[in-house]
């Protein structure tokens, strides 16, 4: 088509993106509401820290799910949802860490540092969080342009390491019943397996 396209590709906060943001915000609002209502159970601090972590992991998994769904169902517009979902995942993980530092440990830096170095599950969780930071910092258009599409895409492949680290963090923390971490692990395995399979198919 040489004439002006009938529909310019939409950018920014289109209605679907706003809806995605609102949905991502719901668990947080729900948690804050329950916290204020004193409805987070017998051990509210633990519930708060755990729920923030679990929602961070859930959104990371949803973020990994978007590309396969968009490709399989031929809905390329869905790709745009990755950014809000990914940024919200980062926000939940950051709040998870903040609640651990500020509410659970009450800024006892000595103990926190000892935890990070000595407790494998906290070590892996911290690595995952640190690796998320560059991804969050480069999640705006100017950064993508500056890095160039290829470099940006390669950088964001870090998420293939981050999500398994998050699952490992969860797995190592659970005492006896590993069902839930294994469920997350299984889903992540399928989502990463799909990418591997496509990559191999392209190579041969």
């Amino acid at each position, binding site marked *: 088509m040489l004439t002006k396209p009938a529909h310019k590709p939409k950018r920014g906060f289109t209605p679907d993106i706003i809806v995605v943001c609102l949905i991502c915000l719901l668990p947080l609002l729900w948690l804050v509401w329950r916290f204020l209502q004193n409805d987070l*159970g*017998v*051990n509210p*601090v*633990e519930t708060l820290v755990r729920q923030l972590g679990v929602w961070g992991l859930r959104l990371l998994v949803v973020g990994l799910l978007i590309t396969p769904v968009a490709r399989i169902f031929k809905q390329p517009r869905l790709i745009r949802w990755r950014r809000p979902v990914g940024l919200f995942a980062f926000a939940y993980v950051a709040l998870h860490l903040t609640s651990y530092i500020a509410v*659970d*440990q*009450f800024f*006892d830096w000595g*103990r926190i540092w*000892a*935890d990070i170095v*000595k*407790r*494998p*599950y906290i070590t892996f969780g911290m690595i995952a969080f640190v690796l998320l930071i560059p991804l969050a910092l480069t999640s705006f258009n100017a950064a993508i342009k500056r890095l160039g599409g290829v470099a940006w895409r390669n950088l964001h492949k870090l998420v293939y390491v981050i999500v398994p680290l998050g699952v490992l963090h969860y797995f*190592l*923390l659970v*005492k*006896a*019943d590993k069902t839930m971490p294994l469920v997350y692990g299984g889903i992540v395995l399928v989502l990463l397996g799909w990418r591997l399979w496509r990559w191999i198919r392209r190579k041969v």
Partner: protein
Amino acid sequence: MLIRHAPDLTENDVTPKETYLRRREIMAMGIGAGLSALAGGAQAAQLTGKLSGKKTFWTNEAQTPREAVTTYNNFYEFGTDKSEPAKYAAALTTRPWTIKLDGKAAKPQTVDIETLLKGALEERIYRLRCVEGWSMVIPWIGIPLADVIKRAEPTADAKYVAFESLARPKEMRGVRSPVLHWPYVEGLRIDEAMNSLAFLAVGLYGDLLPNQNGAPIRLVVPWKYGFKSIKSIVRISFTNKQPSTSWNLSAPDEYGFYSNVNPTVDHPRWSQATERRIGEFRRRDTLMFNGYGDNVAHLYKGMDLQKYY
């Protein structure tokens, strides 16, 4: 509007299971006590009238609200989530109930729970420290473990005491999956078991033990992590070798036989230096032997507690 009868519903269908099970429990206690319990509204003070009044083991620390004590439980026989025992333990039938005392003893025997309930009961307020890093203060009612052990007259060969919980898959949904070794087993050295702190609880907060807290009878060893305080006991055996314990079988490097509360020996996956007292916001320092060193430290004299964790 169409109003119709519901002849397909029986009394059975409209009585909540909890109510129905409580009714049984109340009957078991004797009609008189049952009626007064009913008259008193919910389940007020079923056992307080029977207490000896001894205040040997007491603390003035704030008691953890009953609501928390009865809804935040690790009782994997009813599920691994701490809210699950309160939801599903009502399915457990706690009568008839007997405890088998066997092994290296002169008078092995089977004791009926009713016999124990008829004897002298005392109230003790103990701190409970969970290996997960939280703690509570609970007013238990029960009898010294030593009193029950003496009934069986353990022989000189009895170096250890092995405990076994009920494992009844029909009523305990958690037992249907192999998350832990079933039946749940625990153990103590005989001198630990004979220590005056070791207690068999049949009640808390003045009432019979709620099922989720280990009805009808459970161990309370407050200087050890909570998982040592085995619930719903059906068997106590005297042995000459160290008995296996469910958590030790599940993760030997994480849960030792002794499992004394010790802030200087970390769980491999988390620190044990601090704990959160349920109901409090800030963590507090964990005390050696959960603050019961005066009573029990002598039991471990000369032992390397890093090794015998």
